[in-house]
């Protein structure tokens, strides 16, 4: 794309792991220049965090996934000389992000108040685990722990299951996404009013926001959400909402009036239930459906139900999805070259003016751009 929306913006990323760096990745894909500020020894701890023991170079594939399209500046924030360089960078920056525990940036003199003195128009954005006050503020802001404390693990799985966590780091990803929203809105205000901003999000507040429908219902009813016994899809929704086994795989059925479903399936046992009972008696209804749907193949049910405009889809795994023309039409994959090897990853999900946003710039080596960035700063002084 010729001109990306955030072109010309400079972001300093003091963040590590996933929450803050996922925000940096989105800003980079939208056109910002994102410079990771990393410890000279080891850098972002995510460099050494591999899943399935997959490595791209000295750093894990996971690190490369989250930190592509960025630069790296190595600095020891406890070293006076390095800190002076960082302060020069802050003077030139539009945005700073960090996800240290409360107090860490204060200790090195890079908290919002100090940074604001260096650069009054700075957008300073931070992610904590639990906010900066209260008894949990110093707890580790780790995704599974946040899911567990926030009630989220009681939303998935069936009633008899233990609490079931989301198998993706949902708290990290949402807090990163919310940080981007706050940063961009603050940049819009700065454009009009010339003022900087402090943007704060926490993993806990982001996860509570994520559950806003469930929480609002709970505040009103004071009833803890109950997962259904059979094919639970959403604690607030009536039968048939859920995933069902068929003769050869699985099928998902979303909201549909029972009478319409009974007619489409030609399932007389469903006709004994009125629509008013679709929530209160959902387990009975879903049990009948489960016994009925398992008798035929997924394709058999799909063609029958789609004919009646019922909201239904097959349950696919990634291999099945990857081979599907609907997936190929998205062109969601992009390639990067690291150390002579090709890595495939996903692109930014946002399209602008009809164009997909691709970037083939791989994640930086630790400190890869330190010298270059110092030279740029010196040039600006002259």
């Amino acid at each position, binding site marked *: 794309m010729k001109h990306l*929306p955030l072109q010309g913006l400079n972001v300093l990323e003091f963040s590590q792991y996933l929450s803050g760096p996922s925000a940096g990745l989105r800003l980079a894909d939208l056109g910002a220049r994102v410079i990771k500020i990393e410890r000279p020894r080891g850098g972002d701890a995510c460099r050494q965090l591999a899943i*399935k023991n*997959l490595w791209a170079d000295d750093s894990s*594939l996971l690190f490369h*996934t989250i930190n592509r399209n960025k630069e790296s500046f190595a600095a020891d924030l406890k070293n006076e000389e390095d800190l002076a360089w960082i302060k020069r960078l802050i003077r030139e920056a539009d945005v700073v992000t960090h996800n240290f525990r409360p107090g860490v940036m204060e200790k090195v003199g890079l908290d919002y108040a100090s940074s604001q003195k260096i650069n009054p128009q700075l957008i300073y954005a931070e992610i904590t685990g*639990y906010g900066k006050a*209260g*008894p949990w503020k110093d707890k*580790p802001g780790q995704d*599974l*722990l946040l899911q567990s404390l926030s009630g989220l693990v*009681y939303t*998935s799985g069936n009633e008899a*299951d*233990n609490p079931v*966590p989301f*198998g993706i*780091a949902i708290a990290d*990803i949402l807090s990163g*996404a919310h940080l981007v*929203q*706050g940063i961009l*809105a603050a*940049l*819009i*205000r700065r454009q009009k009013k010339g003022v900087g*901003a*402090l943007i704060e999000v926490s993993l*806990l*507040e982001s996860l509570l*926001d994520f559950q*806003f*429908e469930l929480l*609002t*219902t709970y*505040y*009103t009813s004071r009833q803890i959400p109950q*997962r259904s016994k059979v094919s639970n*899809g*959403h604690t607030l929704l009536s039968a048939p909402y859920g*995933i069902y*086994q068929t003769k050869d795989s*699985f099928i998902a059925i*979303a*909201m549909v009036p029972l009478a319409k479903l009974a007619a489409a399936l030609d399932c007389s046992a469903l006709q004994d239930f009125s629509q008013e009972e679709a929530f209160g008696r959902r387990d009975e209804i879903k049990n009948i459906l489960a016994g009925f749907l398992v008798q035929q193949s997924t394709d058999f049910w799909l063609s029958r139900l789609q004919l009646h405009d019922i*909201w239904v889809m*097959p*349950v696919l*795994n*990634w291999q099945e*999805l990857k081979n599907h*023309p*609907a997936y190929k*039409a*998205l062109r969601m994959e992009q390639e990067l070259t690291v150390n002579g090897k090709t*890595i*495939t990853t*996903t692109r930014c999900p946002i399209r*602008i*003016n009809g164009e997909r946003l691709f970037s083939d710039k791989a994640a930086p080596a630790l400190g890869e751009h330190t010298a270059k960035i110092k030279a740029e700063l010196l040039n600006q002084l002259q």
Partner: protein
Amino acid sequence: MNLLDDIVVIDFSQFLSGPSAGLRLADMGARVIKVERRGSGDICRELYVSDVVVEGESTIFHAINRNKESYAADLKDTCDLENIKEILKGADVLLHNFRPGVMERLSLGYESVKKLNPSIVYAEISGYGTEGPWKDLPGQDLLLQSVSGLAWLSNDKNSHPTPMGVAVADIMAGTHVTQGILAALYQRALTGEGALVQISMLESILDFQFEVLTCFYNDGNELPVRSSVNNGHAYIAAPYGIYQTADGFLALAMGNIIVLSGLLGCPELKQFAEPKEWFSRRDEIKTILALHLKTGTTESWLAVLEPADIWCARVLNYEELMKEEGYRVLNMELPVKTSNSLEMITTRCPIRVDGKLLLSSRGAPLLGEHNETIATEFLKPEEVLKNGK
């Protein structure tokens, strides 16, 4: 001042994906006007869930649509459509989540609207994108979770595919469209140019899986295997997961098995000295751990693990969470009131700006509640006359 003061958003979207974006923009200061069908409005108004209804209206509609205005219109009526076009001339953002082609048929596609208002940011959410064999299928959350592979990531290995129990595809798409809108508004502030921003729920739910999908792309397309015991994440080693204790549940994130063995007094774990085995033999390790943790209370384990800086936590339901000082100190609960005095409690915006919480007490609008004021502000006098109710 609010971050998005003076930004006007005309929001044609329904249900959750688009309206959740409208809510975020409203909370950051934008003026969000819902354009709703005359007579019935956003279908979500009628979506009664779990038999919980506040004075005849869905709690969910109120949660999603607080802090907005409502303008009722029949887009198939020529007069109403002309008024909408007039209103769009004064808008900064248009948002919709109709299936591909619907807005174009109403002559409200991007090319037409751009002619009315060249600097508009036009944002749309589809289910599956605007091309390909699924483009006309309904973009519904559970269905997106099911086709995207997501249902194979949560719960134990022998469980059926398990959907996430929150509408994550809707919410991610709403989150991404907000990001796109704001980036485009920022650029517009510099150049004066509008933009088309397009999101699909499928691309959003794939992006949500970017870490594990990248692993799949590069490991020879091996499918994820969920742990057989207390699965927390298909790709993470033991002990990661939630364990039953004598009186509740305990979450354990990444940790050193040998250290845990000592702290928990579980010598059987000592045999797993090789860190690589914490992944390859995680089910064995977790089976031992699961049996052992049942012998003590959650508090007794936390008393040993927390001082040693092990990443662990209790597992709370909503009732337990709300008794915690760690929850109360966030002030996450937001009382709102509608114009007909319906009061309820919902959650506030999760973003803090300049150290302040974003608290708007304005409840969701009645259908068409703001037709008159909007007509006065946006329509020329002769159009106001035509806009009679």
